[in-house]
């Protein structure tokens, strides 16, 4: 359940931003989670509520923006869509795929007051 650590990372960033950007309460958090990031959105929601409790983001809403998996296929020489790390290229069947998108987990935006 590394989603717990990830939520603690989110809270660290929020607390630091609250000081530099001057806000006292967070109402909504937007996270961008890639399909290949190894993060289970439902586990993330569960941990988010638990970790934010008692903080400046207590009760905040969590919006998860899903980002699709994208890989560079060496034989095809172009980007292709993948949904798993073990997917083959949908065009040529090769495993020579370099993940170029969908492994990110980022805080995008906050609604604060």
């Amino acid at each position: 359940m590394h989603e717990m650590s990830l939520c603690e990372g989110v809270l660290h960033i929020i607390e630091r931003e609250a000081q530099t950007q001057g806000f006292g309460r967070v109402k909504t958090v937007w996270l961008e989670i890639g399909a290949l990031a190894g993060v289970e959105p439902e586990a993330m929601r569960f941990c988010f509520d638990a970790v934010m409790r008692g903080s400046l983001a207590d009760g905040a809403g969590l919006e998860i923006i899903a980002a699709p998996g994208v890989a560079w296929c060496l034989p095809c020489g172009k980007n292709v869509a993948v949904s798993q790390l073990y997917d083959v290229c949908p065009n040529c069947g090769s495993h020579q795929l370099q993940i170029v998108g969908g492994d990110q987990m980022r805080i995008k935006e906050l609604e604060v007051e």
Partner: protein
Amino acid sequence: MCGVCGCGEGLNHSHEHEHDPQHGHAHEHRHAHAHSHSQHHHHHEHALGPEHAHAPGLTPARMVQIEQDILSANNRYADDNRRYFGERGMLALNLVSSPGSGKTMLLTETILRLKDELNIAVIEGDQQTARDADRIRATGVPAVQINTGKGCHLDAHRVGHALESLNLPEKSLLFIENVGNLVCPSAFDLGEAHKVVILSVTEGEDKPIKYPDMFHAADLMILNKTDLLPYLDFDVEQCIRYAKQVNPKIRVLQLSAKTGEGMDNWLKWLRAELDLQGIGYA
């Protein structure tokens, strides 16, 4: 946040080489070059609708763009660790596996074969107990135990603290034995040169595609307990095909830490990788 030294939120910690009593906030410097505020901290207020109208006594809601990787704090500590290893020509390996793969026996057998030739140390990550660290210390090399409690992986911050207490000589070989877990440790960079995933033949050949993140993150897979193959329906070739499906660049070594079969290739790999760390890259 930090369970090791109580250093606040984990973001105001700096490693020993950065401590400077003249500067109360050594981390300010690190933040300054880790990400520029002008680049990442856009701060704009959206046009406020009627529900957000600024009324006396009420704070208006506003949007703040952050655009930061959730693992950014861990990754900064990992960079510190990587610099530490680089400056000392050390080889640090992050050993990952499910519980019971034979990681600790592989380590003790490796240490017994190399300890007269190389400086070796171990950082042991476990949720509870110091059983594994005790087994390592019995071989005569230093081991630091990190109990993660309910945590399912080691993070770069705690590894940095363990490095301070080990204070290793240059060109050491450092094994970081992660918590037995094929999922969570894959996401956390510790500053290591390689993740080495250990899979035992009793676990089934489909582990690489059941837990692809870990096999994708590792550079070397060790297939352990090969002495048991005659008693099992484990398809070695299929297992290697699955691993390469997830990570075409992964290298595979087959061995039995118990009988010693195949250990020589692993020792050769370790010596070669340690040599590579000592080249002195720019």
